[in-house]
């Protein structure tokens, strides 16, 4: 009982108390963020500068992570890759949450609208995520914006279903009935009474979408259907250099590890946050 009445807001202290690994993950994410913001100033080389003499140099000074088959500095490219990672993560999360969130909430609240909208979502969900992304990417040009939109759309479908479920649960809560008796209208019920109670689970969901988006974007890059090849993203770095893996095994190591550490960190943070959620919503969250 005591548990049920605790305020369910996510507090940083509660999330990371006793979870040292998750705290390390959060620190790593901060580093990535700083790298992303300051990449042009921190990077020792121009990420696009080709130096045929220095092709496939092993890691060491001055090329911290070595160079690729064009002789471009892997470390500088990795720093700029952090930008792409953050951009794609934040962008697709925003699209997924706003679009999917609205569709899910409105569908659960207005039952008749929900019948139509959720059937449409069912159809989208009949496609495995990457497959839907592949087809959509074929329709569009390869660009950063399009990649973000496509990944965002794919997870908007998932998010709408999750929000649908959570809103349905909340909608039957007594305090919603109480607000209705106080005379609250639809807008107030949706955005003053329902939405604030979903913010914490939405935040947790956002972290998992962020992680999925990284892996999805890397996979699209790898298949040659993601970001334009000239964009220095971790996925593109892997995709372009993969044929050199036997000659220069370290080449794929750094961008790969960067993806793994970042996704791992986001997942850890999401997992830690999920533990401090209202238990009713825990099962709705889709994540690792």
């Amino acid at each position, binding site marked *: 009982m005591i548990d049920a009445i605790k305020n369910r807001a996510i507090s940083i202290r509660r999330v990371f108390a006793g979870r040292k690994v998750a705290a390390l993950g959060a620190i790593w994410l901060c580093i990535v963020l700083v790298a992303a913001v300051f990449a042009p100033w921190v990077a020792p080389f121009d990420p696009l500068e080709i130096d045929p003499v220095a092709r496939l140099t092993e890691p060491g000074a001055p090329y911290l992570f070595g160079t690729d088959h064009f002789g471009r500095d892997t470390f500088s490219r990795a720093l700029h890759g952090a930008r792409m990672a953050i951009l794609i993560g934040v962008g697709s999360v925003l699209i997924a949450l706003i679009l999917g969130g609205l569709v899910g909430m409105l569908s659960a609240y207005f039952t008749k609208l929900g019948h139509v909208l959720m059937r449409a979502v069912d159809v989208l969900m009949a496609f495995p995520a990457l497959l839907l992304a592949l087809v959509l990417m074929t329709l569009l040009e390869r660009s950063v914006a399009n990649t973000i939109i496509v990944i965002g759309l794919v997870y908007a479908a998932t998010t709408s279903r999750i929000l649908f479920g959570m809103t349905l649960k909340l909608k039957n809560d007594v*305090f919603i009935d109480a607000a209705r008796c106080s005379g609250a209208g639809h807008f107030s019920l949706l955005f003053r*009474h329902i939405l604030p*109670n979903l913010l914490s689970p939405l935040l947790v969901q956002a972290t998992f979408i962020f992680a999925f988006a990284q892996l999805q974007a890397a996979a699209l890059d790898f298949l040659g259907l993601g970001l334009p090849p000239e964009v220095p993203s971790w996925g593109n770095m892997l995709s372009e250099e993969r044929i050199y893996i036997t000659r220069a095994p370290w080449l794929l190591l750094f961008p790969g590890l960067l993806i793994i550490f970042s996704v791992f960190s986001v997942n850890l943070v999401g997992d830690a946050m999920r533990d401090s959620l209202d238990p009713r919503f825990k099962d709705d969250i889709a994540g690792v």
Partner: protein
Amino acid sequence: MSEPLLDVQGLKVYFSNPATRLFSAHDAIKAVDGVSFQIAPGEVLSLVGESGCGKTTVGRVLTRLEKATAGRVSFSGHDMLDMSQHEFRPLRRHIQMIFQDPFASLNPRLTIEQTLQEPLMIHKLAHNRAEARRLVVDMLEKVGMGADVLGRFPHEFSGGQRQRIGIARAMIVKPQLIIADEPVSALDVSIQAQVLNLLKRLQAESGVAMLFISHDLAVVRHISNRIAVMHEGRIVELAQKTRLFEQPEHDYTQRLLKAIPRIPTSLGA
């Protein structure tokens, strides 16, 4: 009896049974199956019965949280069930509800002040925040709480305190009818007594009419003027409380009264 404030005639509420919906559309659960009663201004009528008898559904129809299948409900002369959501708005203020579960009935994300202000603002009973705050503080005082609780959140309060806040929310708009759905059954005995006293006092002071829904016959006897016993969607007996307890007529009422465990009255009291 004077002109009734609330007049319920032949109210029916059927729910479709989800288990059988696919093949037989007509198989319905008859939650409320032809219920009629009246409440006079300032009167306390209780609906008493066991779980699943339909008493809660009656309350939810009267606050339009549930739709009626058939019947007529008139509230101070207005035919309530046929109204659109929009037409009902001015009436909504006059029919307020107190809920059973004090832990679930307050929005955990709103402060006590926000919760209590909401109905004032919606029904334009206060025109600015200062006025609203004054009314909220007045109301809180009436339910035995101080102005220090304004900025606090529901989880900081015990069940009894939350139920007081719930009562304040219902009373703050000065309604004509309060529907109290098991308002004390989630509370501990000693707190239940405090809240019952409070409800009774506020009711007497404001002269609001009340539909008191409960499964607890002792509580019902304490608070009501008249009592309606519900069983399987119908009212089987409706009488003045003393008469109902002293000379129960219906079989079911007698069975109910017999089943209640009695506490031997000690000599000391």
